[in-house]
């Protein structure tokens, strides 16, 4: 029992224990009851909480007397913690949280091979995933292709996006139906037209009618029976690896004919059996690839299957971008801590006298330390609360930018984890910002403090500590500004990359699928396209209009092999090129110059000889040393258009289909000879406001294709912006963070120099009384600043070089050690440091010798 009493006593504050412990111990020699132990424990807790309440109240009372100090510190913390909470919330939602699927770690993307340095994911044939079922590591395999178009339900047409999938898709992702069922293998049998629809479509177009199961709708003209409605809120995986959910799903057949092997347009996913490794599965897939290469040398000679975890494929470079940004905000928080640490140090050192007196009056140094830390904690807590509010506002404001730049962006918000992070950050900042100045106060030597404070000298230990913190601030800020500078340069390079097309005056429409896709004959397609084109050409202000199967920087790139007639190629080295179907004015609209021969004209029709135009990259890579005009290449039909040997009639300049890569070899065939089901419209109307012409183009679409939702319209600048959203996101964020870091570091310099000048005012007064000139005093202050800055710059350059090296892969053509960026940033840091200390330096010269000496 006595032991229990002693243990319970430990709950009480040390002061109480020291004073009453012995007496309580003595009374425990008599009779002790269990209730006594409880009473003692409760008393201990009560005294402790009373202490905390008293310290917090005391901190509030003291802080309320220094509103300026409090505002600066709270603002600093709010910026630092706010930026952290915002970026952490994004990192957590996008990178850290597991994907929203059942056992997401077992899901992999199947790649078909490597071409042009990039893995090719959407080039599987229907036979491939079925062949792969022989690989024991796969629990299930699926293949899918994007589809979509116009759904006609209950007499209303509406645009839909959809996927054609091998039905194991639903098992692999764990997607279930809330009504009816998901698709089954039999749904892919010939003659069966069954689909499942999303909860969203069910609610918006079927009034959430439960009797919808069994209803027939028309999808691009084909009747389809609805067999299920999927549960709401289940994301899907599409061929691009994004998590967009789809409006409907249709089944691909589970049997592949020999002809199916040639049709390569599918993306593949699989689920691994528990315990299967990526490496051993890839080894097994290599064997399968080799077997297929032997069995089908003509079709499968370039097959090299491999798998990658879906998470890696989905996040792509987003994960590394977010980690870089996260490192930047942690750097900012450290700068904020150093700044506040200095402010607290300055404030506490002016209180040395008070603290020394209180310590002399019996307050333990431990109590005083606790009180100071609680003061820092109160500031950090208020700052964290303001920071969370800031983060909330920032995420709200940035929602649009995030949605374009990052996968899973819609799941980003301030949640429990964010709040926990904010609390952790507040705690860490309290310790970091509070501990350093506290250490220098740890040994309040009454005599020296009373003397020094009376004379107003700057105790050198304090000064050293503050300078060290500023050096670290400058180092971190420099590293951040360098990283952001490199990112800005790389981004500016990127968006200024010549695309090979006119930057202004061009409007492009998104892709539209012509109605009645599967029923429509090529002639019907061509007629619809002629009507649409005529309407576009007649719009006021339009100088030229064209239709194309894929628009510049658009979402779709159709590539195929285009061997030259009469040549034989070693396996795997046939000419590979982007294949595009365009109307004759395509090149005029986009300002692509004709280098040789002619462009398409009205004589190139379905009935005339097949013709093609190649770009310069195609001519240089595959037709080197010969006149391309007159050469015949194989134009493989796609989208139900005919395959033919087409004679090259012209060579045009290069355009880029990916802003970050050099132009790819490309060939064009006339839209009239291969009318694709997908169409995008391009017009050149330099004198008309983009919004006006976009509206009129929508009108033309509505007139020509009344049952189809008109697509969105984009200027070239918008296409570039959509295409570079992630880079833009990283650039804006890093630049903002670099500015915050710079401002914090400069305010740190300003604070320290100001404080030092105030503390040394007596010295300056005396020196000026003894004849020192004003410039000499200013030079003295600036010299100290420059020494501190130089130290910070030296350390900062090392950090910056390491950071730049780490992000080199994100910088494109810009060298991570770009001397211009480094040089400008160093100059910027020095100039701003001088500016930040100029005002306090000038103040030093205004010290009146008499004033300074009065207190002596």
């Amino acid at each position, binding site marked *: 029992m006595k032991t229990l009493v002693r243990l319970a006593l430990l709950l009480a504050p040390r002061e109480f224990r020291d004073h009453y412990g012995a007496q309580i111990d*003595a*009374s425990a020699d*008599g009779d002790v009851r269990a209730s006594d132990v*409880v009473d*003692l424990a409760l008393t201990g807790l009560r005294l402790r909480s009373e202490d905390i309440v008293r310290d917090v109240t005391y901190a509030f009372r003291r802080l309320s007397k220094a509103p300026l100090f409090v505002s600066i510190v709270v603002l600093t913390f709010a910026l630092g913690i706010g930026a952290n909470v915002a970026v952490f919330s994004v990192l957590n939602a996008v990178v850290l949280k597991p994907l929203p699927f059942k056992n997401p770690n077992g899901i992999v993307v199947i790649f078909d091979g490597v071409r042009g340095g990039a893995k090719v994911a959407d080039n599987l044939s229907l036979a491939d995933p079925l062949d792969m079922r022989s690989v024991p590591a796969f629990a299930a395999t699926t293949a899918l292709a994007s589809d979509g178009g116009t759904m006609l339900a209950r007499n209303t047409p509406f645009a839909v996006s959809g996927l054609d999938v091998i039905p194991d898709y639903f098992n692999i992702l764990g997607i279930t139906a809330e009504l009816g069922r998901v698709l089954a293998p039999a749904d892919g049998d010939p003659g069966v037209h069954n689909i499942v629809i999303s909860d969203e479509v069910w609610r918006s177009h079927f009034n959430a009618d439960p009797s919808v199961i069994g209803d027939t709708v028309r999808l691009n003209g084909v009747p389809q029976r609805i067999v299920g409605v999927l549960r709401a809120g289940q994301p899907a995986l599409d061929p691009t690896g994004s998590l967009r959910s789809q409006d409907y799903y249709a089944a691909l057949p589970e049997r592949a004919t020999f002809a199916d092997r040639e049709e390569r347009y599918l993306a593949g996913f699989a689920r691994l059996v528990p315990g299967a490794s990526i490496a051993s599965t890839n080894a097994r897939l290599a064997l399968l690839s080799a077997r297929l290469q032997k069995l089908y040398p003509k079709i499968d000679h370039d097959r090299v299957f491999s798998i990658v975890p879906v998470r890696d494929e989905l996040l792509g470079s987003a994960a590394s971008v977010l980690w870089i940004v996260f490192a930047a905000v942690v750097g900012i928080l450290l700068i904020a801590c150093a700044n506040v640490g200095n402010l607290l140090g300055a404030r506490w050192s002016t209180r040395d006298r008070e603290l020394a007196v209180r310590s002399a009056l019996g307050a333990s140094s431990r109590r005083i330390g606790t009180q100071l830390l609680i003061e820092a904690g109160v500031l950090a807590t208020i700052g964290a609360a303001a920071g969370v509010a800031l983060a909330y506002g920032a995420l709200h404001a940035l929602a649009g930018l995030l949605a374009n730049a990052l996968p899973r962006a819609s799941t980003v918000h301030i949640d429990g984890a964010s709040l926990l992070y904010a609390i952790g950050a507040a705690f860490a900042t309290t310790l970091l910002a509070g501990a350093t100045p506290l250490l220098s106060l740890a040994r309040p030597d009454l005599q020296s403090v009373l003397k020094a404070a009376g004379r107003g000298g700057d105790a050198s230990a304090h000064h050293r500590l503050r300078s060290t913190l500023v050096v670290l601030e400058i180092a971190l800020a420099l590293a951040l500004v360098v990283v952001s500078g490199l990112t800005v340069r790389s981004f500016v390079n990127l968006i200024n990359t010549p695309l090979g097309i006119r930057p202004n005056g061009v409007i492009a429409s998104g892709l539209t699928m012509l109605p009645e896709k599967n029923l429509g004959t090529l002639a019907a397609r061509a007629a619809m396209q002629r009507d649409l084109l005529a309407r576009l050409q007649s719009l006021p202000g339009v100088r030229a209009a064209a239709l194309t199967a894929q628009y510049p920087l658009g979402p779709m790139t159709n590539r195929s092999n285009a061997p030259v007639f009469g040549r034989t190629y070693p396996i795997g080295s046939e000419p590979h090129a982007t294949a595009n179907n365009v109307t004759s004015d395509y090149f005029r609209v986009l300002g692509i110059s004709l280098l040789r021969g002619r462009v398409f004209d009205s004589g190139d029709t379905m009935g005339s000889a097949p013709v093609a135009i190649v770009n310069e990259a195609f001519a240089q890579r595959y037709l080197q040393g010969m006149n391309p005009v007159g050469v015949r290449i194989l134009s493989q039909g796609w989208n139900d258009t005919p395959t033919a040997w087409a004679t090259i009639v012209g060579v045009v300049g290069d355009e880029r289909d990916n802003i970050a890569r050099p132009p790819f070899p490309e060939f064009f065939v006339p839209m009239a000879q291969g009318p694709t089901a997908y169409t995008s419209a391009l017009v050149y109307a330099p004198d008309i406001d983009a919004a006006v012409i976009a509206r009129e183009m929508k009108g033309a679409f509505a007139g020509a294709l009344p049952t189809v939702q008109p697509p969105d319209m984009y200027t070239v600048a918008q296409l570039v912006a959509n295409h570079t959203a992630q880079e833009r996101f990283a650039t804006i964020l890093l630049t903002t963070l670099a500015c915050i870091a710079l401002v914090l570091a400069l305010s740190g310099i300003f604070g320290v120099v100001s404080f030092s000048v105030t503390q040394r005012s007596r010295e300056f007064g005396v020196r000026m009384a003894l004849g020192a000139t004003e410039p000499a005093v200013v030079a003295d202050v600036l010299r100290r600043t420059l020494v501190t800055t130089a130290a910070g710059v030296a350390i900062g350059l090392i950090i910056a070089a390491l950071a730049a090296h780490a992000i080199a892969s994100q910088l494109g053509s810009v060298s991570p050690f770009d001397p211009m960026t480094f040089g400008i940033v160093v100059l910027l840091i020095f100039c701003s440091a001088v500016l930040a200390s100029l005002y306090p330096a000038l103040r030093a010269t205004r010290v009146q010798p008499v004033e300074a000496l009065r207190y002596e």
Partner: protein
Amino acid sequence: MEATGDPHVFLPLSPSAFYIMLVLAAEERHGYSIAKEVEEATNGTVRLGPGTLYRVIKQMVTDGWIIEVDRVDSGDPRRRYYRLTSWGRRIARAEASRMADAVRTAMDRRLLSASTFA
């Protein structure tokens, strides 16, 4: 510390504080014996646990109602003795008279009879 002013602002006292003051009104006591005395005087209905006892003592010392006296216990040197200050005595007296008023009122309303005190 000799405090002055109106003792009534501190009333009513907590029962623990009042009992401790009642015991100390008679003589200096050490903590443990205060608790014993309170328990005996109330026939065991009021028990001051060690935590409550010393917490209240600490507070009363801080407020100047009682003081620790310089006296070494012959039996156990760890014990400390406490004495009521004159300021503390005024407060205890004010509390006692507040209670007496309450008792008188209770008798007027026949909640108590004189025989209670017999």
